[in-house]
C-alpha cells in the first residue's frame, strides 16, 4: 500500500520543518524528489542528509517568472512529474487594522499565487500522462481563522477553494487535487512558546499533544498514492482533533 516507487515529486519549502518531513515521507515510500526552497545552503544540506538520487531546485516563490520556470526545471531534472506538493508558506502576522499592504501582498503571493502558478504548470505534463497528484498544505486557521493572521488565513482558505476548482477541471484526466491542513505541529516556532501558553494550547487539542511533521508526511503520502485516486477536492485535517470540520 502507498508505494511511490517510480514516482517523482516536486516539494516546495522542502528544507523547512514540515516540508522536510513531507520530503522524508515521500522519499521513504520510494519517490524521487525535486526539493525546492529559497535558502540554497539549507536546501543542499537537506538533500545530502536525505541521501538518494534527489535534486535541489532553489526558487524564490515571490518571483512569478522564477516560479513559472520551476515545474519545467523539475520535469527536466526528474524526467516527469507525478506529484506536486505546494508546501511553502510565509507568515507576516499583524492585526488587520495595522497590516501593511506589503504584508498582505507578500503572503498572498507566496502562499497562494505561487501555488496556483505551479499547479497550472504541473497540470500540463500531468494531463499528458493521464495521472497526477496536486497537494497543497493549508492550515487549520484557513478554516477557523486566527487573530493577527487575516493574510495567512485568507491564503490558506484560498488554497482550499482553488484546489476544489482544479479538482473539478482535472478529474477526468486522472489528476487529483487535495489539501492537507495541519493543526499545531512541533517546530522551532512552537518549541520557544512559554509553558503557560503551551499548556493553554494543549488544552484545546483532544489528543493532548502537538503533532509531528511525520503526521503531515503520512497524510501527503496517502493523497499522493495510487490508492487515493478516488479522493479529490478534499482537505484532510491533521490536527489532533482541535477542530473537527
Amino acid at each position, binding site marked *: 500500500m502507498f508505494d511511490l516507487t517510480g514516482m517523482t515529486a516536486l516539494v516546495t519549502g522542502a528544507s523547512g520543518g514540515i516540508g522536510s518531513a513531507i520530503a522524508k515521507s515521500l522519499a521513504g515510500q520510494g519517490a524521487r524528489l525535486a526539493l525546492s526552497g529559497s535558502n540554497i545552503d539549507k536546501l543542499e544540506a537537506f538533500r545530502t542528509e536525505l541521501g538518494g538520487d534527489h535534486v535541489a531546485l532553489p526558487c524564490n516563490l515571490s518571483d512569478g517568472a522564477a516560479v513559472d520556470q520551476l515545474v519545467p526545471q523539475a520535469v527536466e531534472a526528474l524526467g516527469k512529474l507525478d506529484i506536486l506538493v505546494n508546501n511553502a508558506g510565509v507568515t507576516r502576522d499583524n492585526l488587520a487594522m495595522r497590516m501593511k499592504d506589503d504584508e498582505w501582498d507578500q503572503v498572498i503571493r507566496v502562499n497562494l499565487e505561487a501555488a496556483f502558478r505551479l499547479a497550472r504548470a504541473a497540470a500540463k505534463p500531468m*494531463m*499528458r500522462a493521464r495521472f497526477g497528484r496536486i497537494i497543497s498544505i493549508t492550515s487549520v486557521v484557513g478554516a477557523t481563522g486566527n487573530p493577527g493572521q487575516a493574510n495567512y488565513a485568507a491564503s490558506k482558505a484560498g488554497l482550499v477553494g482553488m484546489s476544489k476548482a482544479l479538482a473539478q477541471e482535472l478529474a477526468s484526466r486522472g489528476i487529483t487535487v487535495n489539501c492537507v491542513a495541519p493543526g499545531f505541529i512541533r517546530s522551532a516556532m512552537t518549541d520557544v512558546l512559554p509553558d503557560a501558553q503551551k499548556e493553554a494550547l494543549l488544552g484545546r487539542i483532544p489528543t493532548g499533544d502537538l503533532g509531528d511533521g511525520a503526521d503531515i508526511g503520512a497524510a501527503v503520502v496517502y493523497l499522493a498514492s495510487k490508492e487515493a485516486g478516488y479522493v479529490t477536492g478534499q482537505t484532510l485535517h491533521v490536527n489532533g482533533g482541535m477542530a473537527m470540520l
Partner: protein
Amino acid sequence: MSETADRVRKIVVEHLGVEADKVTEDASFIDDLGADSLDIVELVMAFEEEFGVEIPDDAAEKITTVKDAITYIDEHQG
C-alpha cells in the same frame, strides 16, 4: 490534402476518439466533434508537440475548427 492536414486529422481522431470521416476541414471541435474546453487545451498541446510550433493562448482561442488549426500551423511552422 496537405501533409499538415493529415497529421492534424490523425491527432484529432486519436484524441477525441471520433471517426476519421467526421474530421472534415469545416468540422468544429466542440459543435461537431464533441470536444470540451479541456479537450481543446489538450489538442493545442498535442499540435504544439507534433509540429514544434508555439500556439499562444490568444491564438488558441481562435482555433475552433479543424481548418483553423491547419491554417495556423501552416502559417507558423518554421
